[in-house]
Each structure stands twice: as structure tokens, then as C-alpha cells.
């Protein structure tokens, strides 16, 4: 297993230790509000354990992925709203 993985968050290259969840990568890069509610309010993670669905982001063009449940991978493309 490699020590570091490289991904992009909103087109910006970031490096994180292997085994980091996407949510932690987002928080480590200062992103708290990851999506918008249906009425346009900013939303961010609440539980961090896959229950609240508040931390959904688009990963590799797939919308509504729970960022707290996905580990960062090399070349991963993460987008927030």
C-alpha cells in the first residue's frame, strides 16, 4: 500500500495519507459545506458514520456518494456543490 494518494477536489490536486476517507480529505482542505439542500441552503457532514446522508458529493461523475463511506483513491475526481 502506498503512503500517499493524490486526488482532485473541485479541480484542485490534493494529497492525503492512504486510508483517508473523502470526507476527511474535504475537511482537511477547509471544505465544510459539501452540497446544497433542495431549497439551496449549504449542507455539511453531521454524523460521519454513513447514517445522515448530509455529506454527499459527486465522485468520478457519480452524484450523491456518501463521502464519509468512501476511501480516497489515486486519480479520484471529487466535486462539491
Amino acid at each position, binding site marked *: 500500500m502506498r503512503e500517499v494518494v493524490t486526488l482532485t477536489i473541485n479541480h484542485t490536486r490534493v494529497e492525503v495519507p492512504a486510508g483517508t476517507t473523502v470526507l476527511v480529505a474535504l475537511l482537511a482542505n477547509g471544505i465544510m459545506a459539501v452540497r446544497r439542500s*433542495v431549497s439551496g441552503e449549504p449542507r455539511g457532514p453531521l454524523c460521519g458514520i454513513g447514517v445522515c*446522508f448530509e455529506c*454527499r458529493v459527486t465522485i468520478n461523475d*457519480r*452524484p*450523491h456518494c456518501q463521502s464519509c463511506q468512501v476511501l480516497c483513491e489515486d486519480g479520484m475526481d471529487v466535486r462539491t456543490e
Partner: protein
Amino acid sequence: MSPRAYDVIIVGAGIVGAACAAECAKEGMRVAVVESSCVGGGATAAGMGHIVVMDDSDAQFALTRYSQCLWDQLADDLPPECEFRRYGTIWIATDEEELDHLRRKEQFYRERHVPVEFLDERALAEAEPNLREGLRGGLLVPNDSVVYPPCAARFLLERARDRGAVIFVGRPVARLDEQGVTLRDGSFLPAGAIINATGTWAPELMPGLAIKKRKGHLAITDRYPGFVRHQLVEVGYLKSAHAHEASSIAFNIQPRPTGQLLIGSSRQYDVESSDVSHAVLARMLARACAYLPRLAELSIIRTWTGFRAATPDNLPLIGPLPGHEHLYLATGHEGLGITTSLGTAKLLIAHLLKRPPAIPPEPYLPSRMESLTCVKSSL
């Protein structure tokens, strides 16, 4: 005018009862609506809200077409939460036999001046890029629309209230008779006419009424704006809707203004439990994925069931209860109650005020089949 407290009492505040209330109040009648639980809480809350012109019979066409025109007239008055959108329907054919069916459908609508557009395989793929390849064609009916039914029911009821209607919510009815409605708390509301608009519960107030519960499942996804752009329905849908076997499935998917997708449909007789059946849900979703393969990648956030009020001949019961002077029916709309609620209200008003209706009322009269309405004469 009747000397009784109300000219008309409508039992049931689903979309049909709400539409009847709005229409009666508009005519200056003294109206009461009695609802046992909450406004639009039965089939109204469970259904898709597809306002669709149907071609399964001339009677079904007449009522759905007339009702759709009424929805179009109402559209500008509907508040935003009613989410009225004219998305149009595309009926989809998968093989040669269904293509023939689609062509007959096209001709049926054209002969009756309903705008339609035939989409060949390529045009269909352009209209709906997420459909699988190899489908034979589609029939676009652009004027079909969608609405969010519980809010539409509330809106119609508020219109009635603005014109003086009295609304009793959370007040179960114990019984009704020619004099009025007795509530379970013992109070009695006298009325000149009583309309039973309680959907699948109608036989509880009129034992013997030939209404059967027909269970349906629906699923809704997270928000995926643009994944589908029209309401998509397999052209064999009516085979499912009219099937009399215990259970049937048909592909039917609707985009919501939020970007969510509402996925149906299933039909089951003789099931009392409202639980979601995973077996039925799995069949329904597999059917949808057979048309839209990428649907399998999307997240469903909620599933639920509801019960349609089905009649033996697939047409609603609208009009006087045979053998009773003051009792009327407005039920049995099966899966078309949202569409046909407005036309139903117009037909009932014509009965109540002895006016000529806009469309022939005979196909929907409860008296059309004695076995439909062998209700105890003690009412």
C-alpha cells in the same frame, strides 16, 4: 335550497373530495367536508400525480381528456408547491407488436385531436438519452402534465373554504344516511346531499359497493436533474392496469421538479398489508432498469405503497347511488384519480343541480351495473 344545515356534505378530503368541495362551493352551495384523518392522506398522497389522457376506452378518454383541459385551465392558479409541470408523456415500444400498438395509439389520439408526435428509434434516443438502445419507438403526448397531489388537494380545499365551506378534519364518520352524516363522536350533520368520496374506504360506509383495493408500490430517488425529461411509460402499461391476475408490473417513471425520479408501477389485488414487498419492489425496479440501465447506479431514498380504488370495469363511480335520493358516489378512480378529479367534480355538480354535463355521464353512473352497487337499502 334545502332547509338542512348543509346543501351537501362530502365525505373524504382526498383530491376527488377536495375537487367536489371546490366545485360545490363555487356554485354557492353550503358545503361541509368530513375527513377521518388528514387532507389528501390516502391514495392522493401515495400516487404519482400524472395528469394523463388515456385511450383504453372512449369513456376513459372522454373523462381524462375533459379533466386534463380543466387542469390546464387551473394551472395558472396553482401555487408553486403544487409543482405543476407539463413534462409530456412518452409511451415506449420495445418490439414489433408494441410498435403496432403504438401506431394504433397514435391514430386514436390523432382522430380525437390530441396533439401527439411519433418518435422513431433515433428521435426517442435524442429525447431521452438514458433509455437503452434498441427500443423501437415512442409516442410523445406533449400536453400531459404532472402535479404534486397532496398540495393540489389542499389548494382545492382552501378554495372551497374561501367560499364558505366548513372542513372537519380528523373526524371519522360512523354512518351516513338520506338525512345526513353521523360522526363517530356522536354529532349529526344534516345535509341535502351526501357524496361518498372516500376512495378505497367507500364500502365501509356503503357495504356491498364493488370497490376493491388494488395495492401499488412506488420508489423515489435522490436528485438527478435531467436523467429523464418526460414521464416514460411502457406502451403495454394498460395490459398491467387491466390485468385481473393477482399481481402485475409495468414500467412507469416520472421526473419531479426537484430532479428526483418517481419509479413505478405495481398492481396487486387481495393484499391488505401496506408493507413494502421487497419481491414486488425488486421486480418493479428490474423492469425500470431494463429500460433505463443507468438507473441501477442511482440511489433510492424512499419506498412506499398505497391502495387504488378499483372497479370491475376500470371506470369510476360518479353519480347517484341507485335507490337513494340523496346519496352520491365519487370513487373507484383506480390509478387515475388525480387526473379525473376535476372532471368528476363537474359531473357531480351536473347531477346535483340537474344540469346538462359537458360529457356524457352514463359510462360512470353507479347504476350501470347492478352488481357494482348492491348496497343495503337501509342507508
